[in-house]
């Protein structure tokens, strides 16, 4: 059923008893053209674009739990394309363009809100690096504005401008950046893919790969054996574990990133704001809660929870930047398992094993990448070649030296 104002009115007249399920909860078949492991945003987006753009709908998405139960439900919902490197920027800008048309494409309200992303700078040197990044963005056709302190103060008068330890000198603003509703993105992609014939199979954990003559031709799952011509992994957070089933070792460490949400307050923070002197970022959800986070805890973890020193560090960042929120109560916090690649950038590539394809290493930037990740992974699966905006995301770049190290910190995943 198509969602529209007319259908809404029609359903209202019949007491809203006529709405069908948003998408079809399928049982697995014995064989598919393409099987995607991982029913998060990336896996479902891949299935949607395989069906829509490439006309391949004999596709299954296998999810261990329920769709969106992993990192798609554990992020801070920020979308942006403010990247420096030429290998990254066109990819994230393509993602941003897909976000801008996503709701019309999916016929689903993903609550995409281009409320602006502002990165604050606190020194002359930091201003120069932000100006450089802003210039790089503009040369790629992406919007960027460098604001001075007065412009930031007009926009966000509640920040600490009183001569703080790290005075705010200005910020780099991407007005087209903003937030989206994470669950709606998952459900929207699931609905659109399901409508085109994709099977979404839940509670279906992959427990092994089936090989024939060196090629991977299927997966063993908790719901039986499934054969496929091609298999794509989109299981960021658990990539090393699933890859190990195929005998692959990858340039990835799993780390925990914590996030927080406060009680709901009246509209206060208009966009996304990041603190440049520590690591703290914050936005306000449409429900009113402040959604914020900071650094990784810094050690390998699959525990989906973190420790107190990072909580303290994030809250210190909050108080240094906007003391006004000091008495807002934190409602809950959680941890997500991040697929930290060794250069801080993702991998969308073949694996070296015929039939097995990899979408991984999203670090803590996976949510904003969801549409383009799905688009480019679908392109790779359908055509066996990298999409032009994802050509830099090769698995062999760690051997060839073509690293995409946006922060320039080297092979130390807990610093990216």
């Amino acid at each position: 059923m198509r969602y529209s104002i007319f259908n809404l009115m029609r359903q209202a007249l019949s007491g809203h008893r006529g709405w069908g399920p948003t998408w079809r909860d399928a049982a697995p078949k014995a064989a598919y053209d393409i099987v995607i492991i991982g029913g998060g945003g990336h896996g479902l987006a891949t299935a949607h674009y395989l069906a829509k753009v490439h006309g391949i709908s004999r596709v299954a998405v296998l999810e261990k739990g329920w769709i969106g139960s992993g990192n798609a439900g554990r992020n801070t919902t920020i979308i942006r394309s403010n990247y420096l490197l030429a290998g990254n920027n066109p990819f994230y800008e393509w993602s941003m363009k897909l976000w801008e048309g996503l709701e019309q494409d999916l016929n689903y309200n993903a609550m995409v809100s281009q409320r602006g992303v502002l990165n604050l700078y606190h020194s002359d040197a930091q201003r120069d690096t932000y100006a450089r990044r802003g210039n790089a963005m503009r040369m790629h056709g992406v919007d960027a504005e460098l604001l001075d302190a007065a412009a930031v103060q007009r926009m966000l008068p509640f920040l600490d401008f009183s001569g703080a330890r790290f005075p705010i000198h200005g910020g780099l603003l991407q007005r087209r950046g903003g937030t989206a509703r994470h669950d709606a993105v998952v459900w929207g992609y699931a609905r659109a893919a399901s409508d085109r014939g994709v099977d979404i199979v839940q509670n279906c954990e992959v427990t092994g790969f089936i090989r024939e003559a060196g090629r991977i031709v299927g997966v063993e799952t908790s719901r039986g054996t499934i054969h496929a011509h091609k298999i794509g992994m989109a299981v960021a957070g658990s990539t090393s574990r699933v890859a190990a089933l195929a005998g692959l070792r990858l340039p990835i460490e799993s780390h925990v990133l914590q996030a927080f949400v406060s009680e709901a307050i009246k509209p206060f923070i208009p966009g996304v704001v990041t603190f440049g002197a520590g690591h703290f970022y914050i936005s306000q959800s449409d429900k009113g809660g402040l959604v914020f986070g900071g650094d990784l805890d810094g050690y390998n973890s699959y525990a989906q929870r973190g420790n107190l020193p990072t909580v303290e560090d994030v809250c210190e960042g909050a108080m240094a930047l906007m003391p006004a929120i000091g008495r807002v109560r934190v409602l809950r916090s959680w941890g997500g398992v991040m697929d930290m690649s060794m250069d801080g950038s993702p991998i969308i590539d073949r694996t070296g094993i015929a039939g097995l394809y990899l979408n991984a290493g999203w670090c803590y930037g996976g949510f904003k990448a969801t549409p383009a990740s799905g688009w480019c992974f679908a392109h790779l699966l359908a055509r066996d070649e990298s999409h032009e905006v994802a050509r830099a995301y090769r698995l062999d770049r760690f051997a060839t030296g073509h690293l995409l190290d946006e922060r320039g910190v080297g092979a130390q995943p807990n610093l990216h």
Partner: protein
Amino acid sequence: MRIQCPFCGERDLSEFGYLGDAAFQRPDPGAPDAEAKFVDAVYVRNNPAGPHDELWYHAAGCRSWLRVTRNTRTHEILAVAFPTPDRHS
């Protein structure tokens, strides 16, 4: 999370810095496959879900490097020792 430093006793996580997987060993640069070995040593990780040998630095304490075995699923510390002398850390 607290780590039982063999020199200082049990201390809070905030006193420690983290390097990563303790399996790292510098390959022989003269070996014929040295390049592949170095790529593997620098970039590729086992990244297990479960017990993990890793290097921590007691920065705000005795400043010793420690070899810690920790469960990455639960954060339980299973063993702490000084790295053996033949390890590069």
